[in-house]
Structures are given as C-alpha cells and as structure tokens.
C-alpha cells in the first residue's frame, strides 16, 4: 500500500519528494516538517510528516487541504562503515546472507530490511577487527524465511571457496528463522571442512542500541580464531545477558523461542562450548572431529516433504503430495508414531520407492518403532526411524541423501548413519 491517489496527486502538483520539507494545512491545522515515506499500516489518506522535534505525525488530507514545499531534500552522502583487516591476524571470512543481523530501518519504505553489508555489520563490532583480519563479502540480503536449498548451495560454495582461499574461519551472517535448517544443510554439504564454519544471527536488528548482533558476531569470530574445532556451528546468546554465548553443533540446534536472545538450544546434546564475556571458551565435550578429506557435496533433492503428525491426520489430504515426492519426513508423536490411518499411505509410498522417515515431535529423545504396535506397523510398512535427529535435521539430511545416494535402501542406510554429529546412540542425563 502506498499513499492514496489524491495524496500522490497533491504531492506531484507541488513536486514534493520524500525528504522535502513541507508546510501542510489541513482542516485548520498546520504542520511543517519532512515528508516521510508511507507506512505499510498507515491509512492511505494520511500524510506522514517528521516535525522539527523529531516526531512523526499522520495528517489526514482532505480535498481542501494544501501543501507547499518549503525546502528541498539535500541528498546526503551515506557512507557505510567497513570492517578492517589488520595484517598478521588470523583471516576470517564473513559472508553476509541477510537476516535481522544485517537489518536496519529502510528510510524509503519505513520497514526493517536486511540491507546492511557484511562489512558494515562487522564494523559495528569493533572488537572483531582486533581478533581477526575480516574479509567481508555480501552474498545475499534475505530474511531467512525466503531461503531455500538453492541458497544453501550458494553458501556452501562460497564457504568452500573461502576455505580454498586459506580462510582460518568462516562466519555466515544469517536470519534466525531458518538458521537451524541452513546449519544442518551446510553440515552435510561441507563434511570434512578444513576450518570452522559458524552461522551467527541476531534477535534484535543491528539498528538498535540493544542489538545482540555485535556481541554474537564477536563470540563467533572468537570461536573461529580460538576454538580449535572444525565443522559447522551456530553461535548465539546462551542467556538473556550480553555476556554468555553458546556454540551449538549445526545438526543439533533449533530455534526454540520467537523473540528471546537465547532462542537457540541444542537438542539431545549439550552445546559444544560456552563463551563468556571475556572470550574464554569452555568445552562441554571432548569430541574431536576425525580427520577427513574436505569434500563439497552440495546436491539437494527438492522433492522432499516435512509433515507433522496430528490427531485425526487424514491420509487423503496428503496422498498426492507424498506420492509426488521422493522422500518424506514425518514428525510423529512420542516414540515415532502416526495415527493408524496413515500407515497404508506410508506403505504405498515405501513400496513405490519413496523414503519415509519417522522422527519425533517431542524434539528430545530417540524414536523407537519396536515398542508399540503402531511403530511396528510403520516399520513393516517400510518407514525409517530418525533416531534422535531433530525433524528439521532429518528433513535436510533426507534432501541431501536422496540427491547424493542411489536407491531407497542405500538412502535408508545413510539416514541411520551419523555423518555430522546429527544422531547418537547415547543420551545422557544432563541434557
């Protein structure tokens, strides 16, 4: 929505542009101030003026309202700060993908958009340039809800290129909504990565004084430089304070809160490490990555579904979608169950060579399809248990497995084989 026809006509009759200073008289009241862009949720017949006091007000424009330009907007040169590279410090590539961490208010649309470059985000955290030589590059500027497997592939390629170029760490600035999916995807695509690949985001946009972007980014770069680990990770706030950060394994992490800074939690495992305000890293495990040849395997099967079981789930609603796919993950109930009505569809799909994976919507704990009758029926129908994999991770892994391995049997075997810490036979009492 934009300004109404009549307002646009009034503005064009006086050649007023956004940013000009106007004098507006409407129904006996007069306002003088800067013409602001229309707000999406403002009434179309209301003109938004920024007064000298800094306040914006909406002025309803009627047929007899008048406006006059009293000052033209002088275009200001907006210079964006850029991150520094101090030679001799470890080289860390910062790849921008968008998200809240890259967002600020857009003066043209009045909305918050991911319009900051990776370099500008890094420059807002001056500590970062004291830890590492930052080589920033903006790959795309998207909210993560708009990302798909094509973007994961581009990110994987950019990360692989940075590794080849000798980067000692890679940080990806990413939206938080689907960061867990991207982290899982990169974990499978970049197995044997030669350096840490850390996804980092923010729950408060970078145009706010209270943004968690600078502190999260600093912790992420710290982990790249001092962490001594390889693989794909997510670094975000561990608590509500700006002094505590968690390093999560890319295949084990999930956004568990819509708005809190500590929204990201590891599932069925402790976070890999904790970073405190002074950059001290404390590990929760003694795991070390087995040495492997780095390998970029970025193919993904898009014809893959993620369904959530619910009471009364009607197979007829999903039949066409399931049968038109190459694989399905169902986030089932409890140990990994669906309503019995779904079992014939699962069998039909498996018989047709479609891989059906059963995960649990409990998010914690492992599936066990041998315990109850429904589970056994699902197993007999050909379903593959996801173990303690998160449903989202199982979904991403299935996309990857379908694209990189042949045959339903082989795909089923891969799904039950740990590749990037995504599943485990052990679950301990402290998580």
């Amino acid at each position, binding site marked *: 929505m934009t300004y109404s026809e009549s307002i646009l006509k009034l503005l064009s009759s006086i050649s007023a542009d956004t940013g000009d200073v106007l004098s507006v008289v*409407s129904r006996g*009241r007069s306002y003088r101030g800067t013409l*602001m862009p229309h*707000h999406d*949720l*403002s*009434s179309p017949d*209301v003109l*938004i003026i920024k*007064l*000298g*006091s*800094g*306040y*914006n*007000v*909406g*002025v*309803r424009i009627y047929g007899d309202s008048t406006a006059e330009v009293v000052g033209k907007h002088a275009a*200001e040169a*907006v210079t964006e700060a850029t991150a520094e590279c101090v030679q001799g410090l470890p080289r860390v590539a910062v790849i921008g993908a968008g998200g809240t961490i890259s967002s600020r*208010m857009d*003066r043209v649309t*009045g*909305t*918050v958009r991911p319009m900051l470059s990776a370099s500008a985000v890094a420059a*807002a955290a001056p500590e970062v340039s004291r830890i590492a030589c930052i080589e920033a590059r903006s790959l795309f500027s998207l909210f993560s809800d708009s990302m798909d497997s094509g973007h994961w592939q581009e990110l994987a390629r950019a990360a692989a290129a940075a590794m080849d170029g000798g980067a000692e760490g890679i940080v990806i600035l990413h939206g938080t909504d689907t960061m867990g999916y991207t982290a899982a995807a990169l974990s499978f695509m970049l197995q044997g990565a030669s350096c840490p690949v850390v996804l980092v985001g923010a729950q*408060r946009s*970078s*145009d*706010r*004084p*209270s*943004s968690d972007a*600078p*502190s999260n980014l600093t912790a992420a770069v710290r982990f790249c430089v001092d962490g001594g680990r390889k693989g794909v990770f997510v670094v975000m706030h561990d*608590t*509500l*304070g*700006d*002094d505590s950060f968690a390093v999560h394994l890319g295949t084990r992490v999930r956004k568990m809160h*819509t*708005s*809190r*800074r500590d929204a990201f939690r590891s599932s069925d495992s402790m976070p890999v490490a904790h970073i405190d*305000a002074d950059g001290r890293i404390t590990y929760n495990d003694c795991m070390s990555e087995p040495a492997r040849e780095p390998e970029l395997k970025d193919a993904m099967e898009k014809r893959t579904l993620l369904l959530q079981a619910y009471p009364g789930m009607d197979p007829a609603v999903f039949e066409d979608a399931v049968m038109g796919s190459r694989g399905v993950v169902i986030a089932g109930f409890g140990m990994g169950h669906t309503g019995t009505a779904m079992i014939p569809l699962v069998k039909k799909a498996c018989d047709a060579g479609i891989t059906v994976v059963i995960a649990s919507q409990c998010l914690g704990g492992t599936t066990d399809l041998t315990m109850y009758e429904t589970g056994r029926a699902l197993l007999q129908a050909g379903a593959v248990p996801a173990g303690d994999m998160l449903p989202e991770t199982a979904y991403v892994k299935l996309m990857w497995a379908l694209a990189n391995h042949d045959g339903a049997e082989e795909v089923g075997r891969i799904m039950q084989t740990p590749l990037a810490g995504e599943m485990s036979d052990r679950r301990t009492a402290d998580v």
Partner: protein
Amino acid sequence: MSEDHEMMCGIEIHQQLDTRKLFCACESRLCDDGVGAYFRKLRPIAGEIETVDRAALAQAQKDTGFIYQCAPGATCLVDLDEEPPHGPDAEALETSLIFSELVNASVVDEIHFMRKIVVDGSNTSGYQRTALIASDGHIEVNGRRIGILSVCLEEDAARKVEDTGSLVTYRLDRLGIPLIEVATAPDMRTPEEVLEVAARLGTLLRATKRVKRGIGTIREDLNISIPGGARTEIKGAQELRLLPDYVRNEVNRQRMLLRIRDILSERGTGPAPLETADVTALFEDCGSKVIRSAVKDGGRVVAVRLPGFGGVLNGDDGALRLGAEMAQHARTKGVKGIFHSDELPGYGIGGEHVDRLRGFLGMTGDTDAFAICASDGKRAVDALTAAVNRANAALIGVPEETRDPLPDGTTRYSRPLPGAARMYPETDVMPIGITQERLESIRDELPELPEAVEKRLCAEHGINAQQARQLIRSGYDGLFVAIVAEHGMAAIAATTLLNTFSELEAEGEDPSAFTDTQLSGLFGMLKDDAFSKEAIPAILKEMTKGVDADQAVAALGLETVGDDEAAAVIAAIVDERADFVREKGMAAVGPLMGPVMGALRGRIDGKQANDLLVKEIRRLIG
C-alpha cells in the same frame, strides 16, 4: 523582581498514569525487591538522519555495562527487550486524548510511536518509545495565556538502584509505566509564574482521574534562557515548591556567565590550548591529601594552562564561578574534582607548589590561570580536557546543556543538550488512526474542570473555597468526596487531608502512600466513636508504618472508654482535689478539664468529658 521579566521559561511535565504498562500487560507498580541480574551493553547507532546523536555519544564514551533486575508481576519479556512491544494500553491512550482536549490541543490524525535514543541504560532497548498525541494548545493561568506545544504519550524509564561507574544496576518495575509528557511554550516570565503553571497543569492531569499520585509520579523539566543566554534544561525536578528557586538560580547563573564572557572579551582572552602536562614530579612533597592518595594509588597529577582566565574561575567574592562549572564537566569523566589557580594556595597545596607550577607552565601574565587534576592518568587528562573545553565555551557565552536539580534549589551540569536527530520510527508499534468521531465523543464527556469541582465542593460539602482549592491542587478532592459520601464529617475530612497531611509531610512522611481503603477505615472508626477526632494525627502517624487504622488505634491504646470507665477516672480526679472543688464550686470545671483531658486524651471527646466532669463535681458538692 523586575529583572526576572528578562527570562523565558517553558515547562515539561511527566506524569505517570495509573493504568497497565504502556506496551505490555504488566501492572504498573514499584517493587521493593529485584529478582535476577541480566548483563547488557548498549551501543550508539546512527539515527535515521545518519548523524550520531551528541548526547548519545557522550553517554557511550563512558563505556558502561548494565545489570537489569526483574520484579514479579511488574516486569515481563517486553521490559527485558526480549519480546516486541504490544499495542499501546487503551486506557493510557484514552487518557492522553482526554488530557489533550483539556489543554485545548489539536490531536494528530494518526499517532506514530517513535524511538528516542537513550543509551544511559535506563531503557533496555536503548530507546524510549514516545508519540506526539497533540500540539498547539493553551491554558490560562492568572489571566495569562500559556501555550501548550505538545502532549506526548511515552514510557517511563527503568529505576537506577546502584551505580559503580562502570556498571549500573536498574530495576525494570518502572520501565514502561505510561507517562503523559506535556510541554509548554517558553511563555513564563517569572519564577512564581513557573510554579503557578506547573500547579495548574498538575491539577488538569489529575482531573482525568487516571494519574498516579505520590512521590516520584510527577516530574518537571524546566527550559530556561535569558536574553543573550542559551537554553538550559533542568531535568527531573520532583518538588513543586523548589521550581521558583531553580529558575531564579539558573537566571543568575546565566547572567554570571554573560558577565564572564564580557570580562574575557575585554581582556582579549582566546581559547586555552588543549595541552596537558604531567606534573606529578612537582608535587612529590605536597601535603594535599587528595594528591597524595591519588599518587599512592598509581595516579598522576596533570595540569593545563588557562591563559587569560584568572579571576573568573572564582572571583568577585564568589560571584564569578567558572571554576565550579569546569569542575562539574571534569567530574563527568569519573574524577572527584579539579583544583584551579583562583582557589590556590589552599586544600593543602602551598604557595611554594603553586609558584613551582606557574614557573613550570611558563605562566607570566597577571590573568594567567591553571587547573590541575590528580587521578588515574588517562582519566585526569580526559577530565582536564573537558574542563578546558568548558572554559573555552565561556568565551562564547552560555552553553546549551542539561542540568540536574539538587535538593537545595541549585543545579549541576549533567550532559550536553540532546539534539533532534535522536528519533526514528518505532517499527514494532503500528500507527493508530484517531477519528473526529472519537474526539467528539471524548469532548462530550470531558471530566469536570477544577473550577467546577471547587464550586461543587463548596456547595455540597460546606467547606470554604480556599479549602476546596487546596484539596484540588493537592489531588485529594476525589478522596475527600469519597470519604464524605461514606462517612460524612466534611470539616474533619478536609482538615485531615490538608493540615494533618501537610504536618506529616513536614515530618518527612509520605501521606500519599495511604490507600483509599486505609483512610476510609480511619473515618469509619471515627464515625463509630472508636476514638476521638483529636487522635487522628497520632493514628495517621502510626499508620505510616503501613498498618490499618484499627491496628494503629490498638497499638496506641486509643480505644474510647465507656461512660462508666470515664466517669470513674473523672471521679478519682475530682476526689483527689476535693478541697479545691468545694472551695470553687462549679467554677472548678475549667481548671479541672486540663487533668481530665490529660488522662483521657483521644479516648473521649471534649464535650463528653465536660458533661461527666460537671456531673462528678455536682455529686461532690451535693
């Protein structure tokens, strides 16, 4: 006072509303205890107009961390900046519209909440949410028309509970309490008029019946300037009676600064160089405790030259006090203070050290001055740089600044005046359209104006106009009417709410903390003759401990006595003085009332005591 007309003053009043919080469903009340401790940092950011705000920068340079405490029931994730704000509280918004109409201001067609950058940590988000509700209004005070520039609706800030310099602790209970901010035009011309206008606006705010009352619920900012001076903002005054003092003192301060400017200009004094020198070695054997303890802690003594500033730092018998202004600026850098040449020798620094320093600094002219600071080396340099900048500003005149009010009616430098660049749209709160129909229905049901309330109180309750006006001005008119409706006793209620309350205030108590229920209980007991009206001051004093009237009465042993018990007490008094009574006859009543009331004060009323005494005397003399 004719000189006082050469001043301009505008007032901004911030009044807390008695509703839920502005952007969440929390109760708006303060809590005695804080729970949790969340550490945060705030960073200055470029505003919408791409310039970093100078006040925000001054704050950020302090590099402070913040700790936030929650308060059960009164804080939630919104206060912690962990959840987006909800829509503004409907009752608070309605109140701001009603008040706008009461001050004849034009309400905007669409309300847009803004973010006002504040990085001192008092807002977890780093900004205060505020919206312009109405502008261009006016009120009449003593026949003069005072313009109302704006009525805003905004959120109150968090409460500071501890400040160690590098770490400030805030409690979030106050954050988000709705405030109406009303700003007048700079139309006031005398300190007394400032008080009258503030009182009138307070009365109009209370007329909405939705404002909080009590200490800290209303705060005044004063914008003062004199011809040739500059706008100074005195921020956060809480005591109405001190407003004229703040104004008078600020006018005098600006006059003093203009005088200093003229003196310096006549001398041809130019800006002092921003060069500091480490002079620790010159003070090795100095007797000053301040210097010795700073050096012992690893600090340095740093000096600056102030050529041409002698005599205005502290001169003309204390009438010129630029040194005090410089010291206030220096203290914002974390030092305890500075010494300057107009006050030395002194403070344990002898003439010999002064001469040595003058020599070292190459000071030759009669009017050459210097300042020194003993502290951590970098801090001392920063403090003296701030002091020199302040001295150099005196060459131009009065700098614009924000000042803190002090309890003695004076003020102190706090920070530069914030610029206009610090606002940008609050994208998390949607614009709110206000229709003409809505405003018309508000106009149809506007609350009673104070003048009408005054007439009604006089007509319906038989109190005089003076009492009625005072009840309204102190905000107790509603309570008065409620008490009288329930219990009658208008005269006693008026005396209690005016005289007894102001006596309690003079004793340092806060009578506004009494709840309506507590006070209704008090008058209910009085109506039931549970005690006599003379006991009210003592009972209220006891009730300030937070107890109800019945508990206070019991604690003071003030339960009224029955006629029989009272008669026995009086009979004993009469019998003790039997000779006197026989000699004086009925004329003994007067002299014996003293001992009788002494024995029964507060437990029996005067008339009753008199009747019983007459009866007992008759019994004795037959």
